[in-house]
């Protein structure tokens, strides 16, 4: 197996599965009855997890992208049933023209529904809609002993709770049924405000959460002193039928051509890029109608943008801190990042709502969440992220496993107090690089 045939999105850490298979149908998935090898397995979706939660160094990866069939869709109710390798992009292509939308979407449409469930992903509408798992009606879970559990809030509810956000460790998700949300057309009403401080950000957030379905902010992570916490706040709603414009049709997105020898995001480019973006408009507020594609997925406009971070890859850090600590903790995090001259251009701030996440191990919880990329500069970067962890741990927050490649077992246990209960549901035939790491054993699975 060649290196990095199945990389993670951050392209760090380097990892090599001992083998990989791509089943063409659910019936071809390996179980104890069909495959006697003792290699630990992990389902791999579309490789958009940033760190090592989708990697299985030394084990076997099961490439789920061959299981990308729709099973049923009812355009009257918006209920969609499909195999786990279907992408959100596939769902949108099917459903938007029929007046339906994915109920929760991350910043890329190139994730599988199985991955969305296993990471209990969230989006810009978390303050109203909660996580992806809130919209899952039921799913099938195939254990490595060959048993199949149909899981919902009523049936096998403990398996449901363990699998939503369970990082693919409880079994193979072989079927997903979700409720889509009604829309009147593909366009969005987007209202963008500049803010000059975190105070202003939290004010805008509080003032927008009832009237805007989607809210998120870009924050200048290179700004210090009086500029600290400045950025742009974007709030949006789906546009009503009357305001619809002509659909521009599918976008052609260029592919990032090659991996440059060094990160294009570095200490020289960091501040100018952020400053330029902050000053991109002279007005403090502007409104526009925007197609859902560039609104939800600006980064999908350049395929494989992750290569811009060079051969060493990058680490993403996403944390959440509780509401009472939010302002102080986010301030401290931004101060430390700016002081280190680390961070990048893609820094995102959002206030989560209080709708409970259905998974034992779900990351979203009430509070403010900050997500940033860090070009991988080795131990310097890892040291900074450990410092950020100490801030988050002191605040009683958490870090998102789907984006993590380095949190300590101690941090993991504090962030996810249900971990011991969860581990009882982990399939003995499955594992991941992440899971071995946070349990404290570093080596390979074999």
């Amino acid at each position: 197996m060649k290196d990095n045939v199945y990389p993670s999105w951050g392209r760090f850490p380097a990892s090599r599965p001992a083998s990989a298979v791509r089943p063409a149908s659910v019936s071809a998935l390996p179980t104890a009855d069909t495959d006697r090898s003792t290699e630990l397995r992990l389902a791999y979706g579309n490789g958009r997890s940033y760190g090592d939660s989708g990697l299985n160094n030394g084990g076997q990866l099961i490439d789920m992208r061959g299981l990308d069939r729709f099973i049923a869709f009812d355009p009257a109710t918006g209920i969609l049933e499909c195999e786990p390798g279907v992408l959100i992009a596939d769902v949108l292509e099917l459903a938007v023209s029929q007046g339906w939308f994915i109920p929760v979407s991350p910043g890329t449409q190139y994730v599988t529904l199985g991955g969305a469930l296993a990471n209990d992903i969230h989006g810009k509408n978390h303050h109203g809609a909660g996580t992806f798992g809130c919209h899952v009606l039921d799913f099938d879970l195939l254990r490595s002993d060959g048993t199949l559990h149909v899981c919902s809030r009523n049936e096998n509810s403990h398996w449901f709770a363990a699998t939503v956000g369970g990082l693919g460790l409880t079994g193979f998700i072989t079927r997903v049924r979700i409720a889509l949300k009604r829309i009147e057309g593909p366009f969005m009403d987007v209202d963008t405000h500049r803010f000059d401080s975190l105070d202003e950000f939290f004010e805008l957030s509080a003032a927008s959460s009832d009237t805007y379905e989607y809210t998120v902010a870009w924050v200048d992570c290179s700004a210090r002193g009086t500029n600290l916490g400045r950025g742009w706040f974007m709030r949006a709603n789906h546009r009503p039928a009357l305001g619809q414009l002509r659909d521009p049709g599918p976008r052609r997105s260029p592919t990032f051509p090659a991996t440059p020898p060094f990160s294009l995001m570095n200490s020289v480019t960091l501040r100018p890029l952020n400053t330029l973006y902050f000053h991109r408009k002279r007005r403090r507020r502007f409104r526009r109608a925007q197609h859902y594609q560039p609104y939800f997925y600006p980064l999908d406009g350049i395929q494989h943008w992750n290569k811009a971070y060079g051969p060493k890859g990058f680490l993403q850090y996403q944390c959440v801190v509780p509401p009472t600590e939010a302002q102080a903790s986010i301030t401290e995090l931004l101060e430390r990042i700016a002081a280190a001259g680390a961070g990048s251009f893609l820094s995102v701030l959002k206030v989560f709502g209080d709708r409970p996440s259905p998974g034992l191990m779900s990351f979203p919880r009430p509070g403010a969440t900050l997500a940033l990329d860090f070009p991988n500069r080795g131990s310097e970067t890892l040291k900074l992220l450990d410092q950020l962890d100490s801030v988050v741990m002191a605040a009683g927050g958490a870090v998102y496993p789907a984006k993590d490649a380095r949190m300590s077992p101690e941090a993991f246990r504090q962030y996810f107090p249900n971990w011991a209960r969860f581990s009882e549901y982990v399939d003995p035939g499955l594992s991941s690089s992440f899971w071995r790491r946070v349990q404290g054993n570093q080596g390979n699975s074999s």
Partner: protein
Amino acid sequence: MNKILIVGATSAIAEQTARRFAERGDALFLVARNADKLAPVADDLKVRGAADVVSYTMDADAVDQHGAMLDAADNALGGIDTVLIAYGTLPDQAACAADPRIAMQAWHTNATSVIALVTDIANRMEQRGSGLIAVISSVAGDRGRASNYVYGSAKAGLNAFLDGLRHRLHGSSVQVLTIRPGLVDTPMTAGMDKGPLFAQPEKVGSDIFKAINKRSAVVYTPGIWRWIMTIIRCVPRAVFHRTKL
């Protein structure tokens, strides 16, 4: 709306091509050996917008069953405009070289049974006065090579048959399309090491869909294989025999 018969509908390339048909709202008659594998493919195509999807189980090796299947497809669709023949096997060359029965079986599946089926379809279409027959062959038929000459020769025989059939039907409104895919990342090639020349079945399916709409005669997919095979055909024998192709 087109009325399309697909034989070998669970093949990865056929499935990707069928998705394009379904998204356009065509009616599909799907034939495959394994009903359990066919059912999820049929459900998917219904959701993607196919006007109608009918499933039919048949082993295409059983040539005596072709007629009944074609009658059923005709009845279900109310006439057939387009046929896509997508079944085939990639036999183990070493096993074929060691055992003539395995070589003959590979020929039966990849050439003889296809020739029987296409003959029947062509006659029906000629009588009706229109139709398009698209057959998935392979670049392997362009030159016999040590690594897979039993498969390659079956496809070469098929290519010559389709060339002749196209010639015969010239002037009628029946079209014959020979599809020559290169290396495709599908379950059929699961045992091979995947180099940069491997194409995804989505790309191949989309090329086939376009070639059917353009009513082409021969299509290489991805297109670069036309040039690769031109070079391979031109290499002098003395040089060719020193390669491991």
